């Protein structure tokens, strides 16, 4: 429309072309696509706005990277004994000193990270999986099955888990697999309670009834409608379980029932601190594994808290 003539829109131009048709290619742009915010993206945004959670996540990621690339990061191997360098304090050669067998503490710390982190993760995932299955079955089936599962959970919860795991390790011989199994078998009740509670409320929802009305089996209802809804809160519980599992593993290894030397774990590196001389005079032997345990557990808990807020659908 270059002329100054005012004409009602839609009226044909003298040449027969519609004014509106003409104006459309002069470039009224389609409104920019409104950016959709998926539930996942919203959760990520909530998570990243929590500084402590981000710190925790970064710390753990860093640990994972360091532990993974340990062979390239240090010139020593964790089992390398050097009797000349016996309980040496930190130096340029051994950044964190050496232990009673002359092994490099930093190297052992990195390799121990592999063990401690994977034990924690595997045990927590195992416990989460057992809890998810038992909890959602209990909630879905109800009745006697529910009572049996939940009373078992109560019984398991009433044992001091550390003692049980020690007994377990004593019976089946201390090994990584025993610890993971024992932790998974005795830490599931928390996860199962969460799963059951959510299942109970979900199974009465109308979309579950609608799912049945279209011919879904109970199993399908569980897999398709219950489990996906249970997973986010369960992820929080599992994260917190990771922290707990790392602690239990450390305690076990410290007591000698966990990861067996010469394999290094943060817990069994602390064993040396059982001697009073070392405790008072050679802090490099226990300070670093001890603080790593504390920091890792703290970081994992921060991540757990951040996740809890992030997956809470009531938050914006």
């Amino acid at each position, binding site marked *: 429309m270059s002329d100054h003539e005012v004409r009602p829109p839609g009226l044909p131009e003298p040449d027969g072309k519609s004014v509106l048709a003409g104006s459309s290619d002069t470039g009224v742009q389609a409104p920019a696509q409104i950016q959709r915010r998926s539930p996942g993206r919203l959760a990520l945004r909530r998570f990243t706005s929590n500084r402590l959670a981000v710190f925790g996540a970064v710390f753990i990621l860093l640990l994972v990277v360091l532990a993974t690339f340990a062979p390239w990061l240090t010139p020593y191997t964790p089992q390398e004994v050097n009797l000349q360098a016996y309980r040496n304090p930190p130096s340029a050669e051994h950044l964190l000193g050496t232990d009673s067998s002359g092994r490099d503490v930093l190297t052992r710390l990195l390799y121990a990270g592999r063990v401690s982190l994977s034990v924690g993760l595997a045990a927590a995932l195992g416990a989460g999986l057992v809890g998810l299955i038992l909890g959602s079955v209990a909630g879905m089936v109800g009745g006697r099955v529910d009572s049996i599962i939940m009373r078992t959970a109560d019984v398991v919860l009433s044992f001091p888990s550390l003692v049980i795991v020690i007994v377990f390790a004593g019976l089946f011989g201390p090994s990584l697999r025993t610890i993971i199994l024992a932790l998974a078998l005795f830490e599931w009740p928390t996860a199962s309670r969460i799963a059951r509670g959510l299942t109970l409320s979900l199974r009465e929802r109308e979309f579950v009834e609608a799912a*049945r009305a279209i011919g879904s089996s109970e199993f399908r209802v569980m897999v*398709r409608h219950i489990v996906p809804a249970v997973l986010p809160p369960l992820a929080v519980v599992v994260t917190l379980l990771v922290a707990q599992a790392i602690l239990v593993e450390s305690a076990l290894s410290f007591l000698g029932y966990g990861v067996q030397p010469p394999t290094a774990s943060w817990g069994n590196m602390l064993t040396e601190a059982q001697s009073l001389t070392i405790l008072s005079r050679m802090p490099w032997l226990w300070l670093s594994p001890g603080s790593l345990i504390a920091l890792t557990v703290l970081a994992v808990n921060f991540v757990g808290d951040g996740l809890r807020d992030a997956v809470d659908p009531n938050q914006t």
Partner: protein
Amino acid sequence: MTDAVRGQLVGSDARPLLSVDDLEVRFSTPDGTVHAVNGVSFDIQRGETLGIVGESGSGKSVSVRAVMGLVRPPGKVTAGSVVFDGNDMRSLSQRQLRKFRGRRIALVPQDPMTSFNPVVPIGAQITEMIRLHDPDCSKEQARARGIALLESVGVPSPERRFDEYPHQYSGGMRQRAMIAMAVANSPDLLIADEPTTALDVTIQAQVLEVLQDTLRETDSAMILITHDLGVIAELADRVVVMYAGKVVEYSDVRTIFHNPRHPYTVGLLSGLPRVELQGQKLTAIPGNPPSALQVLPGCSFEPRCSIGNGDPVCRGEEPPLAVIGEGHGSACHYHDQVPELVERVLIPAVKGSRDE
């Protein structure tokens, strides 16, 4: 149920698509047994729309849940038979019943807000319905079918809407998507459980229209549950009126409106707003439905009935569902007095308003 009634309900000689006979559903609760459905019988022919009317708690929804085998503990179907296209549904296992649900009998639930999983896109829920009963159907085919279905019920830009979540749909659109999903596998029988109750009045008409069009295209029979007689008048071919878990009257849709033969039906009709009665109060049926916890002898409508209240016969004897005309039955001892009641209650109200 007598053979005469049976013959009446079956109507023509054809074998009905669904035949429910003497259905009884009980719920065990801590307060006692709830008698939700007490001997309900009805039939439905292929392609026909049967309206079931009654107030809340009259056993409408439970009856059709029983048809689909969806009565869950503590509820239990305790007696009666449900025969769908020659299959005795009560003798089938859950596994066998699942082959019917969603494929041959589909449900349009009452509340479209809560009947979709809020965290699964609408399209995925529709394709689930399709692929559940047709495992050979590829994802792409199911998607194409789903989009076509959404389009057929009038969801605008179905291609885009297909991937949207339920909360991005409006109420009416969600109910239309529900209808699309229900007819996805061209069921023989559609059960619409108060399909418009949760919707805006302006949307109700739209949804009913979609429902009607869809029925016409798919040639499905429909059971339409509602407490809205207006909806019945618009869509149903025949009507069953339920009260306290029983059928109190059945007939074709014209007869219900023009020659009701049960005082309860009259009560429902007088509660219907009419243009002629502008400015007047609507008449309510006095009292409340009886508690389903106790079963009294006699007619369950007696305490609220303007004909039989206090009548020893009504109090002492349960009226049988008797045939009183062509395809018309009433469970009232004094059904021959009902036309008089209509004269007294319905007609003067209209006349009076005209005189003003």
